[in-house]
């Protein structure tokens, strides 16, 4: 049944609020299953279109991120069927297993995202700049190496070390919170 204009406006507002709040989490879920930034962004875009189309099916009060990730999951499967291995590294069995694990970790990943902000601050400014340059839109290891005056090989190694450092820092922060 077609929505009344007033209801439609409210529904749009609600959708905007939810997408504004949760886009990062949905992207994170997609990127975990499709570990290529640009493919993941394309899939996020496609997923968002489906979310817009199907939003009247979303039940108020239920978990929006879980609902949106379900839509993302089916877009990823569809992408796999349509483009063979394009956009998806893993086979169906692994994709499903990782998707199941990821769906149980959304709350932890939110906490990890917040903790990462603190951990980034603890990095030496030179290291922080290297990491953030690497992850800037349109950038990569080459650009990060160029801007920091490092060789490609040194930047590559430094990034591996810094990712591990950040991963451990985040885990330590969360472990510390749990203990208090």
């Amino acid at each position, binding site marked *: 049944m077609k929505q009344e204009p007033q209801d439609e406006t409210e529904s749009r507002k609600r959708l905007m609020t939810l997408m504004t709040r949760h886009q990062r989490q949905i*992207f994170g879920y997609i990127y975990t299953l499709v*570990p290529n930034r640009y493919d993941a962004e394309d899939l996020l875009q496609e997923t968002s279109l489906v979310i817009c189309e199907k939003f009247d099916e979303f039940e108020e009060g239920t978990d929006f991120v879980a609902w949106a990730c379900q839509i993302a999951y089916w877009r990823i499967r569809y992408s796999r069927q349509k483009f063979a291995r394009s956009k998806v590294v893993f086979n169906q069995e692994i994709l499903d297993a*990782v998707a199941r694990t990821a769906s149980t970790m959304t709350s932890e990943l939110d906490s990890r995202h917040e903790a*990462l902000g603190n951990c980034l601050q603890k990095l030496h400014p030179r290291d922080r700049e290297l990491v953030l340059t690497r992850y800037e839109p349109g950038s990569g290891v080459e650009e990060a190496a160029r801007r920091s005056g490092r060789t490609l090989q040194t930047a590559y190694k430094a990034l591996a070390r810094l990712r591990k450092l950040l991963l451990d820092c985040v885990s330590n922060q969360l472990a510390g919170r749990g203990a208090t």
Partner: protein
Amino acid sequence: MNLADKEILELNELCHVLVEGTLSDAQTSRLAHWLATSEEARQFYVRAMGLSASLFSYASEMQTEESDTTAPAAKIVDVGWWARWAKLGALAAAASLALVLWLEWPKQPTLPVPAPTDELVAQLTGAKACQWVDNGSSVQPGGRLHKGQKLELAKGFAEITFDSGAQIVLEGPASLDVKSAWAATLNRGTLKASIPPEAMGFSISNPTVEVVDLGTEFTMFADAIGSATEVLVLKGEVEAQPNAGADQQPIVLRERESRRFATSGVSIVHDSEEKFAQLAQSVLLDHFIPPTDYMHWSFNEADGDIFKADASGTPFAAADLKLENVLSSALAGAHSAGRWGHALQFDGHLFAKAAFPDISGNTPHTVVFWVKVPKDANLSNAYAMVAWSMNSKNFGSHPIHIGWNRNPNEGTVGVLRTDYGGGFALGSTPLRDGRWHHVSVILIPGEDAKSFVEVKQYVDGRFEGEGNPSPPGSEIFSKLSGATSGTVWLGCRLGINSVRQERFRGEMDELFIADRALEPWEIVQLMKDNQLPQSELAAAKKQN
């Protein structure tokens, strides 16, 4: 079964090459095996990939902020995946409307705001037989130090406390440049650095080496011509990056380890044992710690709608705190379990006030409290945790508000924000997480209308955010505030003459207002012990 260290290292490497797009066929098979057979491996993988996804978000936000700074008129963000939303332009009305808002995304937790160039970033907090090279480089006891200031010590000892909490004792003859709250350059001479955990990442550099603290105490000896520097680690560890020589790989030095960094390369320190023995002897410094007067509301005991104040030192003329806009039936709900004992709970309607004439005087203050902001707090609940007005032309009729940022155009939504006449300061830790955070705001008003106003923020003991000038267009009124001055207000936003409609929602505990700028380590002590160290105790602590 937990993953062994070796397995974690392998998974870490596999995730790294996957993120960088250099995964070989053999590595693809290996990763597939792990993900198909081990739940722990899948969890590690999800965390590692989640880290990269978060870094995309942080990096994108940083670039967005830079873009905003350089081109304030360009409201539409045209970078990163945000820009890809532009492809949605052909969508139906609902989706198009969504597009506009998604482009103006609220900023996620991000990094500290760059500081203005003329800021004050450190202080001379102690000395012994201290003589400066000339009048131009002399520093008065307790004097604040500018970013970029050069200190030329002829003889004696000078203790410098940076706003980050890092502390350096410089031994003359020595020359040091104060670069920021987080960095210094030792041109020549000897220094001993003590870095608390809150200042981890503080660095000291010179032409031969850059030493980044990883939570420690260390000493540096730099020769007069800047050709060699010795680094000795007394506690913890540092990362030392040689700035000269053929091999410039960083070296991690741990407790009782030392190295000599010269233009010719890195070598051992021959007389390190002798030097460590010398360093073990402590130097008694004269400290410039003035006595502290403060008011404290613990919120532990309520008498109806009144919360008692207690004072230390020469008592302020401050009164007990009275709740406003609350029904008697709701009083019990306003008194909840706190970080220490009980807390005052703001429901989005009630506020509180206490007569406090000194707060509006043109003198430094430090406001310290614990706060818990619910995850679902609305933008209308951002103002204010604490507010007051100043009888100073520096602030005009703009009250001072300590709250959380609700303006995504100016910074991350939800971080600590202090507004004052002429500027605002932003933190970087998101406060809207339903957890207790320790908040300290130091306000040092200038002596006259032309003086620079200092505002320093600390969250959970860590320095984050100082005052920045207001964006163009903001106006400082010349009319002084009257109706709201001489009172400290909690949980509400102040207008020029009265309380406005906006109310803070959340909990507050252990509010201290001190009559001077507390040092970073005093803030940490207050956070840990819920009491301010007494002057004599403070002096003793600093002799260690």
